[in-house]
């Protein structure tokens, strides 16, 4: 096991930041720590890197205890490396100096040269951080963190400040780099797409508590509660009685009964020709929004109000009476 957290808790004054956090990462894992702002995810990352001290709990890194009751290994001595949200490149040093500043990085010269080539940084080595673009700074920060060949790579919101276009590119680059170096990686993000595309394991945090952990597809299709379901994209939470065929259910406190999460694309409009016509539910379109690649309608039936995604070409208007069935 590369990283194992047990019952990590942290409070600032009277505010609980983290409570009883436990999870593990295997060697080679890419773990996404997902949560909205204020969920405590960055604090957790800083605790793992040693920059913050937890109030209680233990952390084992690469089979070595780094945090327990009487021990808190200083960040300098931990076998992990953190990439900061704002990169924290040393502004007074060239890119090359930045990359080779890490302790013992000279020993990993071969790896670093390879990474520099791979990340297309060869022509930037003599520049200063303020002279290169945001995407380039990101890559420099990553290479710098990898230069000490850490067992665990930590990334704090690696894509949060990039605009959408760049985000896609950098995400692809990151995935390529992760595949290349095969370092165990733990990243923090509030963007569910990051988790879905980059991670093979996701830990969902809310208000300092772990809500769910598992593979991205697993969490997407089998959320354990309303929060996780909604975090992973637009969804309809309906009482399980309306979807008797659905096998994954959870107890929903808001409805006070078992519920299921039905994604908008899982609902189908049916025409009179369809075999499902008889079992379909009657509804009326009460609003319509156009999103480009799809349109979203809100349909109200006797007991439900549901969001449905339709292909953009479909001709419908508010007030239309339709029939739909939930395709689970």
């Amino acid at each position, binding site marked *: 096991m590369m990283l194992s957290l047990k019952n990590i808790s942290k409070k600032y004054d009277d505010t609980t930041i983290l409570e009883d956090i436990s999870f593990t990462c295997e060697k080679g894992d890419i773990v996404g720590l997902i949560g909205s702002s204020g969920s405590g995810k960055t604090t957790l990352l800083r605790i793992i890197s040693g920059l913050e*001290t937890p109030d209680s709990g233990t952390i084992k890194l690469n089979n070595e205890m780094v945090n327990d009751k009487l021990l808190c290994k200083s960040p*300098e001595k931990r076998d992990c490396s953190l990439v900061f949200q704002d990169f924290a490149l040393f502004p007074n040093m060239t890119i090359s100096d930045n990359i080779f500043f890490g302790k013992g990085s000279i020993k990993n010269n071969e790896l670093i040269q390879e990474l520099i080539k791979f990340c297309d940084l060869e022509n930037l080595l003599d520049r200063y951080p303020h002279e290169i673009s945001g995407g380039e700074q990101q890559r420099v920060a990553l290479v710098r*963190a990898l230069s000490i060949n850490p067992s665990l790579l930590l990334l704090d919101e690696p894509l949060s400040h990039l605009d959408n276009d760049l985000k896609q590119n950098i995400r692809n680059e990151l995935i390529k780099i992760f595949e290349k170096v095969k370092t165990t990686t733990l990243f923090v993000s509030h963007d569910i797409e990051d988790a879905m595309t980059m991670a093979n394991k996701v830990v969902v945090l809310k208000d300092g508590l772990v809500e769910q952990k598992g593979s991205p597809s697993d969490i997407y299709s089998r959320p354990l509660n309303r929060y996780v379901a909604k975090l992973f994209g637009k969804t309809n939470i309906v009482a399980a009685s309306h979807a008797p065929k659905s096998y994954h259910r959870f107890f929903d406190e808001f409805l006070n009964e078992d519920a299921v999460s039905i994604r908008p694309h899982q609902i189908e409009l049916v025409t009179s020709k369809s075999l499902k016509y008889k079992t379909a539910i009657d509804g009326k379109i009460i609003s319509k929004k156009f999103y480009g690649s799809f349109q979203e309608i809100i349909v109200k039936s006797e007991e439900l109000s549901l969001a449905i995604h339709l292909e953009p070409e479909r001709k419908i208007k508010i007030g239309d009476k339709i029939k739909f069935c939930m395709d689970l």
Partner: protein
Amino acid sequence: MEIKHVKNELLFKTNSWTFIAILIGLIIFLPISEVFIQLFNPSESWPHLKKTVFSTYLINTIVLTIGTGLLSTLIGVFCAWVIACCEFPLKKFFEWALILPLAIPTYVSAYAYFDILELSNPILIWVRENINLEAMQSLNSFFVYFFTILVLSSVLYPYIYLLARASFLKQGNQLIEAGLSLGHNINEIFWKIALPMARPAVFAGLSLVIMETLNDYGAVKHFGIPTFTSGIFRTWLGMGDMSGALKLAAYLMLLILILLLIEKKARSRARYHENSGSNKPFKKIILSRKKSIVTIALCSIPFLFGFLIPVFRLSLWAFISQDVIRNISLLSLVKNSLFLSVAVSLLTVVLALLLVFSAKYFQSKLTSFTNRFAILGYSVPGAVIAMGILLLSAQINKIYVDIILTGSLLILIFAFITRFFAVAWQPIDSGMEKNCKNINDASRSLGIPAIFSLIKVNIPLIKNTLITASILVFIDSMKELPLTLILRPFNFNTLSTATFDLSSQAQIVESSIPALCIIMIVAIPLISLNLKGKNKLQ
């Protein structure tokens, strides 16, 4: 702090860096704590002092402080507002000329105006002849206060001017424009928006003015107003009563503590108003011709009285007493002053850097906590610190008889560090907070030893701040008088003590030569700081 935090601190965050930093912080604080303890120590002469002079000292000190504070605020805020927000001929000149009075120590200003009280003579004579002697006496004491406050304010207002100006500039004009669009005129906007927003800065400047007023010895002695500081001198150097002087010093500290608490309260309430403006530069208000003339006239007054007239008079006196230069061995005075100030400024900056770095790099709350104690010295008048140091060295001498600390240069330098530590600490602290926070976390995460991080990253990044800090300490050290007077080694004279000694021997004219030297040596770095846009406020 909760127990778990204490545990975290002691177990995980104490290393050789933080340990040394905590130790140094406490040592710097030691002289002040020595004095403070005296509040609770019995003293034989205290009942007598309390009965005779205590209330006079207290009232005089408070009257002087309030008067100087008010007048300095008036001048400082007015100048700051017109310079920051208005456009008029000669503005560029006044922008830096209004800072120059800072080059003149309060006692030098007092000597330059040594005969200012004579101005009131005709009125006093008239009152004596037409009303009675009593009326004349009370009018006379009013004039003494009035002129002393005038003399002190004329060289202390720049503290408020500098801080308020920076605050006005930072506000930007978005809120001002909002006020204008809501139908207010510029006067209403000043009172309702700009001034309330600048309140924290004005208070910070005001507290510096108050500390300097409390610290002053030369001016109040010259004008014959017995304050706490002059009382400490009188009791210790005049009557040789150490315990009485210590007790006075302790009560002065108490007064300062109360002032600090008031200031903290006033500032924390005002904090809401800070920084809400945009960073767009202020769109200057262009003054009409008539208003420009009035503004220029008003700005000239503090510059004339605070700088031009004193410098002019001193130069005149220096010119007519040239031959004195040989008697006072000017060169060795300059050498001593420069040596002391340079040594103090370098040491203070190095120590401040070490303490700030240890606290921030290792995120040690305990070190931050002891740092806060170490910076208290700047609020404490030199005479009080000197008493604390005397007591401290006496205690050390009791244990180690061989070391004679009192009257050594080492102890004088240590006293200066205690007094001016905050001057270096504050800019370094905010500079490191602004420039090095994440960067230090990054170096830790990369496994770099702290010393490399300090030398290769932190120092290069805050180089300018370090230079500014050392210049600020240098300026303050050059002007310092009470500490040096009490603690100077035998036969060790600086420009400031020579100025004081000569003028107290009624050789005011001759004292102009060392006084002018101080002004010249201080004015150069002061102007250079202003050119760089750096000053005490950072």
